[in-house]
C-alpha cells in the first residue's frame, strides 16, 4: 500500500492538527454524532468552552413553517454567527430544513429595509419613524372623516408573534372596522370551517410526533417539501410498518417515499374520499360502536356515500377504482390511520367540503380522537395557528367568539374599555356585527366594480407582514394597489407590493424587525405554544411589530381619538403582559390559557419531554405536554396534545367533541355523547355558556368532576348550517370536464350573494367558461404549490444568498406529452396564460417562465411554485424597488393564473385547480 505509507509519513507529522484531532478523538469515543443524546453530551465541554469565550447559545424557534422547530442561535459578542442544533426540542430534535438552517442569512441581510421610506413623486425618500407614523395616523384620520372607518383595510400576518397578531386585531377593533384579515384566509380558513363544523375546533387534531403511532397515513399534500422536518416522525412511523399513501396530481417527493400514489385530478378530493368511504361501508369496515356513541347524522352521510362507488369516483378523479379500493382497505385495516393535508385540499371553492370529507372518513373509521389517528392539518407559517386563534380575521374576535354583541362585550371587558365607546368607533352598530373584507377579495373593495357591502370603497390599506404573490389574480391586485390613496407596507424586507404597484405617490414602508429580534410566543400547527427568545437587538432602524403597533396607537391618540390611550395601558412588561393579562384572560373559548412562565420553564426543562408522547417525566414540568397545546384550562393543566380523546380524564388532557350546536339536532336526534355526555357548563357546573364568558374562573371544579367546560357532544356527519350539509362533488369553476359539470355543478350564485362585503358568483362563472368553450383554448389543469427553499411570497427567502443559490428559478412543471405536443423542450422559456382578469377589462393573465419537463406530474396538469415576484407578465419591475433592496432572484408570480373561485363558507381563494395554456409564443391579447 504505497499510498498508505506515503500518507502516514507525510501527513501525520504535523503538530498543528494533531492537537485538534486529539481533542476530537476524546469526544468521538463517546459514540459519534448519530444519536440525539450522544451528540448533545459529546459537545458539552465544547459548548461550555464557547460560553466562556463570550459565545451564547440562545434557544429559539424557526421563523418559517408551522412545524415549530427549535434551534440554538450562536451569538458572539452580539453578532449572530451561526446555528447549533437544539437536540432536546422534542418536535424537531435539532433538525432543520434549508430554510431553517440558513436563518442567519435571512435575519442579518444587507437587502433588508433599513429605515422608514415614503414614495413621493416617483422617488423613494427616507423618513424618520416619527414622521412616517405621523403621516400614517393623519391619513387614517383623514380617511375616517371623508369615507368612514371601513375605508381602511388591514392585512395582518401569520409571521408575527402571538402578541403582535393579537394586537393587530385589537388595533382594528379600536379603529372601528372589521376589515382585517391575514394569510389564514387563503391558507387554512376552510380547515377552521370544515373541522370546526364537524367536531368543534378547526385545528390539527393530533401532532407531528403523534404521527409516529399511525399505521397508515394518507397524504393529500407534499410534506416532504413543505414541512420537511415532519418527515422524521413519518419515517419513524414507516420504520414501524406504517403504509404511506399519497394523493396528488404530482409525483411529489412525498409520493416518491410512499407505498401508493393516487394521481388524482386537481379539485376532486371529495369523490376520492367518498369513493374510499363507499368501499369501507360496502365491506363493513366502519366502526359502528364509535358512530353510534359519538357521532350524529350517519344516515345522511350513508345516503351520499352510496352515490359514489369506487367506479364513479374513478371516473371523476382519474384514479383507477382498484387503487381507490386499495387505499380504502389500507386505511381501514391498518388502524390507527391518519389523514394529512395542507393547501392542496383547502384552496378550492369547495375547500370546506374537502376538509369535512376527511373528517367524515376518520369518523367512519373511528380514527378521530385516537393516538395515531385524527386529521393532521399541516399549517404553513410559523404562527398561522396563533394568528388564526387570535383572529387577525374579518369574521371573528380572538378565540373564535364571532362578532356578536356578546363577543364585543366580552373583549371590551378584557381590554378594559367601555363597550359604548367601542360601538362609537364603528360607522354604525351594524358594521360591528358584519364580517369585513377578506384577503381574497379586498381588491374588489378597492376597485368597487362589483356590488359592495359597505358605502365607501377601500382607500387605504396596510400590508403588515403579508405578501403579494400569495394572493390570487395578481393583475387585479396590482390594479387595486394603484387605486389606493395610501398603501402602508410593514415588513423586514421590501415586499413585492412596493415595487409591483406602478404608482408615483402614497406608499409608506416601515422596517419591522424579524421575529428573532424580539421575545414572544409562537403557536405551531399542533396548537403547541413555544416561547421564542430574542436573539439579537433590532437591526438597522427596525422595530418589533408590537412596538410599532403601540407607537402608532399613541399617534392615533393624538390625532384620532383619546380612547387610543387605553390601547396599551395594561402592558408594563412587553410581551409577557399581552399574553398573561389579556390573551390568557380572554381567549377562553379555545382554552388558550398557558402562562408565559410555564412556557419558559418548559424550555428550560426541555430534556424531560419524551419524543413519542411529548409528555414530561419528572422535574417541575412533570406531566406537562410540550407547548401546552390548547385547550389548556389552567396553570395545573398539562395541555391537550390530541383533541377529542375521551378515554383519559380532563385533568390529563382528555375531553370530547364540542357540544357547540345545542343538545339536539334539527331532526330531533341527540347531540350529546352517549358516554357521559353533557352540554356546555357554567363554572359552577350548571348548563350554560359561562365557561367562556367568566373572566376569573380557573375551571377547577369542573375538571375535578371530569366535566369538559364546553360539554361532551357528538361529532356531526350532518352539518345542517352549511351550503352542503354533507359534502358532495362539485366540478371546479374552470373545469376540463364540461360533461361532468352538468351532473356536479358549482354552487348557485345565490348561495353567496354579497359575501364578506362583496358580490360573489360561482355557477355563472362556470357556465360562462363552458359556454364559451374556454376549456378548449385553455386545456391544461393548473395547480400551484411550494418549493422547499422558499416561503410565502419569498421576499425574505429570495433575498437570502444561500436559499437563492439553492433555488434560483421559477418554473412550470409539465408532462413530456403536453410539452412535446406544443414543441416545448426542457429548459425552454414559455408563456403560461389563463383568461383571469379579463372580467376587469385587463388583458389575459400570463406568466413567462422556464419549462421543466418531467414525468413526475399527471398528464394534462401543470404545476407552478407560488413564491415568486419581481417579474410581471414578462417584464421585470425590479427598478421600482428602493435602491439595493430588491431580492437576489426574481420570477413571475404563479397566482396571476388562478381562476376566480371562492369557498362558499370562508371565501378561500381557489389556487389549486385552474385551467391554463402553455405556449412558446406570447399569447395574443
Amino acid at each position, binding site marked *: 500500500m504505497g499510498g498508505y505509507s506515503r500518507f502516514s509519513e507525510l*501527513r501525520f507529522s504535523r503538530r498543528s492538527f494533531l492537537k*485538534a484531532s486529539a481533542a476530537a478523538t476524546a469526544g468521538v469515543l463517546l*459514540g459519534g454524532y448519530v444519536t440525539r443524546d450522544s451528540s448533545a453530551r459529546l459537545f458539552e465541554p465544547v459548548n461550555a468552552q464557547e460560553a466562556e469565550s463570550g459565545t451564547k447559545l440562545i434557544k429559539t424557534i424557526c421563523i418559517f413553517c408551522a412545524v415549530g422547530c427549535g434551534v440554538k442561535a450562536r451569538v458572539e459578542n452580539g453578532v449572530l454567527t451561526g446555528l447549533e442544533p437544539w437536540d432536546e426540542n422534542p418536535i424537531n430534535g435539532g433538525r432543520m430544513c434549508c*430554510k431553517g*438552517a440558513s436563518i442567519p442569512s435571512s435575519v442579518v441581510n444587507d437587502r433588508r429595509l433599513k429605515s422608514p421610506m415614503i414614495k413621493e413623486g416617483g422617488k423613494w425618500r427616507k423618513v424618520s419613524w416619527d414622521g412616517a407614523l405621523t403621516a400614517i395616523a393623519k391619513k387614517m384620520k383623514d380617511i375616517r372623516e371623508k369615507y368612514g372607518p371601513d375605508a381602511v383595510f388591514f392585512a395582518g400576518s401569520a409571521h408575527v408573534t402571538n402578541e403582535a397578531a393579537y394586537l393587530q386585531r385589537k388595533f382594528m377593533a379600536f379603529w372601528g372596522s372589521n376589515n382585517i384579515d391575514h394569510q389564514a384566509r387563503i391558507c387554512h380558513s376552510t380547515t377552521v370551517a370544515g373541522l370546526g363544523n364537524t367536531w368543534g375546533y378547526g385545528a390539527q387534531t393530533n401532532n407531528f410526533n403523534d404521527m409516529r403511532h399511525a399505521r397508515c397515513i394518507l397524504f393529500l399534500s407534499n410534506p416532504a417539501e413543505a414541512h420537511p422536518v415532519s418527515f*422524521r416522525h413519518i419515517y419513524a412511523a414507516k*420504520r414501524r410498518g406504517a403504509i404511506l399513501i399519497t394523493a396528488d396530481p404530482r409525483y411529489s417527493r412525498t409520493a*416518491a417515499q410512499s407505498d401508493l400514489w393516487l394521481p388524482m385530478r386537481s379539485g376532486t378530493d371529495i369523490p376520492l374520499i367518498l369513493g374510499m368511504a363507499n368501499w369501507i361501508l360496502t365491506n363493513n369496515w366502519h366502526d359502528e360502536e364509535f358512530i353510534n356513541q359519538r357521532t350524529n347524522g350517519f344516515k345522511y352521510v350513508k345516503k351520499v356515500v352510496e352515490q359514489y362507488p369506487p367506479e364513479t369516483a374513478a371516473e371523476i378523479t382519474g384514479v383507477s377504482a382498484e387503487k381507490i379500493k386499495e387505499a380504502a382497505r389500507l386505511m381501514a385495516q391498518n388502524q390507527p390511520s391518519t389523514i394529512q393535508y395542507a393547501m392542496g385540499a383547502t384552496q378550492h371553492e369547495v375547500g370546506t367540503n374537502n376538509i369535512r370529507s376527511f373528517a367524515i372518513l376518520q369518523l367512519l373509521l373511528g380514527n378521530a380522537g385516537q393516538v395515531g389517528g385524527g386529521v393532521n392539518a399541516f399549517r404553513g407559517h410559523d404562527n398561522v395557528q396563533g394568528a388564526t386563534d387570535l383572529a387577525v380575521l374579518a369574521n371573528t374576535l380572538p378565540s373564535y367568539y364571532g362578532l356578536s354583541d356578546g363577543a364585543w362585550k366580552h373583549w371590551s371587558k378584557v381590554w378594559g374599555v367601555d363597550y359604548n365607546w367601542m360601538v362609537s368607533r364603528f360607522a354604525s352598530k351594524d358594521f360591528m356585527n358584519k364580517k369585513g373584507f377578506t384577503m381574497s377579495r379586498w381588491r374588489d373593495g378597492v376597485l368597487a366594480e362589483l356590488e359592495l357591502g359597505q358605502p365607501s370603497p377601500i382607500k387605504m390599506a396596510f400590508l403588515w407582514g403579508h405578501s403579494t404573490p400569495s394572493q390570487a389574480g395578481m393583475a387585479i391586485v396590482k390594479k387595486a394597489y394603484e387605486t389606493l390613496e395610501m398603501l402602508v407596507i410593514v415588513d423586514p424586507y421590501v415586499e413585492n407590493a412596493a415595487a409591483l404597484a406602478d404608482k408615483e405617490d402614497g406608499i409608506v414602508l416601515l422596517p419591522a424587525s424579524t421575529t428573532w429580534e424580539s421575545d414572544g410566543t409562537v403557536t405551531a400547527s399542533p396548537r403547541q405554544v413555544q416561547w421564542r427568545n430574542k436573539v439579537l437587538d433590532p437591526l438597522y432602524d427596525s422595530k418589533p411589530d408590537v412596538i410599532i403597533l403601540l407607537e402608532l396607537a399613541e399617534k392615533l391618540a393624538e390625532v384620532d381619538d383619546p380612547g387610543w390611550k387605553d390601547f396599551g395601558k395594561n402592558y408594563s412588561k412587553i410581551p409577557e403582559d399581552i399574553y398573561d393579562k389579556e390573551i390568557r384572560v380572554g381567549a377562553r373559548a379555545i382554552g388558550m390559557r398557558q402562562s408565559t412562565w410555564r412556557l419558559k420553564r418548559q424550555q428550560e426543562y426541555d430534556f424531560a419531554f419524551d419524543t413519542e408522547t411529548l409528555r414530561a417525566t419528572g422535574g417541575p414540568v412533570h406531566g406537562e405536554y410540550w407547548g401546552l397545546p390548547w385547550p389548556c384550562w389552567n396553570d395545573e393543566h398539562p395541555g391537550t396534545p390530541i383533541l377529542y380523546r375521551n378515554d383519559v380524564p380532563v385533568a390529563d388532557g382528555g375531553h370530547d367533541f364540542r357540544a357547540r350546536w345545542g343538545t339536539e339536532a334539527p331532526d330531533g336526534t341527540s347531540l350529546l355523547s352517549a358516554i357521559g355526555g353533557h352540554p356546555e357548563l357554567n363554572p359552577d357546573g350548571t348548563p350554560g355558556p359561562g365557561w367562556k364568558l367568566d373572566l376569573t374562573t380557573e375551571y377547577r371544579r369542573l375538571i375535578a368532576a371530569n366535566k369538559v367546560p364546553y360539554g361532551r357532544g357528538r361529532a356531526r356527519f350532518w352539518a345542517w348550517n352549511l351550503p352542503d350539509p354533507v359534502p358532495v362533488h362539485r366540478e371546479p369553476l374552470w373545469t376540463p370536464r364540461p360533461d361532468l359539470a352538468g351532473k356536479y355543478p358549482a354552487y348557485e350564485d345565490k348561495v353567496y350573494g354579497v359575501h364578506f362585503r362583496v358580490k360573489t358568483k360561482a355557477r355563472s362563472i362556470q357556465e360562462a367558461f363552458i359556454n364559451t368553450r374556454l376549456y378548449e383554448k385553455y386545456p391544461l389543469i393548473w395547480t400551484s404549490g411550494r418549493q422547499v427553499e422558499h416561503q410565502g411570497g419569498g421576499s425574505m427567502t429570495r433575498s437570502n444568498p444561500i436559499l437563492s443559490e439553492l433555488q434560483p428559478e421559477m418554473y412550470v412543471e409539465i408532462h413530456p406529452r403536453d410539452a412535446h405536443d406544443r414543441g416545448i423542450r426542457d429548459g425552454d422559456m414559455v408563456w403560461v396564460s389563463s383568461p383571469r382578469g379579463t372580467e376587469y377589462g385587463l388583458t389575459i393573465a400570463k406568466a413567462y417562465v422556464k419549462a421543466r419537463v418531467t414525468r413526475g406530474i399527471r398528464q394534462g396538469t401543470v404545476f407552478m411554485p407560488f413564491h415568486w415576484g419581481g417579474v410581471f407578465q414578462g417584464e421585470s419591475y425590479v427598478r421600482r424597488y428602493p435602491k439595493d433592496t430588491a431580492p437576489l432572484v426574481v420570477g413571475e408570480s404563479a397566482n396571476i393564473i388562478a381562476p376566480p373561485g371562492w369557498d362558499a363558507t370562508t371565501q378561500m381563494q381557489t389556487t389549486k385547480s385552474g385551467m391554463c395554456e402553455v405556449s412558446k409564443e406570447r399569447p395574443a391579447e
Partner: protein
Amino acid sequence: MVTMKFLPDMYVNRCIACKGCEAACKTQNKTPENIRRIRVVTFNKGEPNETNIPMPCLHCTDPPCLHVCPVNVIYKREDGVVLLNKEGCIGCGYCLFACPFGAPQFEQLGAFGTKGKMDKCTFCVEPYEQRDNQGKLIKREPKPRCSLFCAAETLLAGDVKAISEKMRQRQGSTIFRSGGAAKTFLTF
C-alpha cells in the same frame, strides 16, 4: 482509534431533498457562492424509483485525491478527516480528476477564469478561509452540521462504528413491523 465517515441511509430514512444539509454547511462554513461542500443529487426525478442522495466528501480511507496531488497539500488526519493545506494548492484540479464523487470544489474566481484553490468538505473542522487574529486558520471539532441538522435523519456522520450501529438499530427495528406491512417500499 476512530474513523470519521458519512453514511446516507438509503433504505429507511431516505433523503427527501430538503437541502437542510447544504444550507447548514453554508451557514456554518460561510462558503461563497459556487462552493458546495455537500450537494443533494436526485436521479430518476419523477419516476417511481426517484432517489435523492446527499453527497459530501466521503473522506476515503485511501483517498485518490491525496495520491494524485502534485504538490502534496492534501492530507489525512488520524481521525480519518481528509483536508488540504490551501496555501500550497496550485488549483490544477487534478484532485477533481481523481475523485470518484466530484467532491473537490473550485470557486472559479481567479484571473482569466482560472479555477482558484480547491475547497472541500472538512467535516466542519475548518470554516472557509477563516483565520483567527494571529492569522492562523480556525480549527474546530469535527461536528458536521449537515448531519446534525438533517431533517429526515438520513445523513449519518461520525465514527464508522457508531454509524454502523445506528444503521443496524434502524433496520433491526423494522422487524417489529406487523400486519402485512413488511415491504420497505413498493414500486407501482
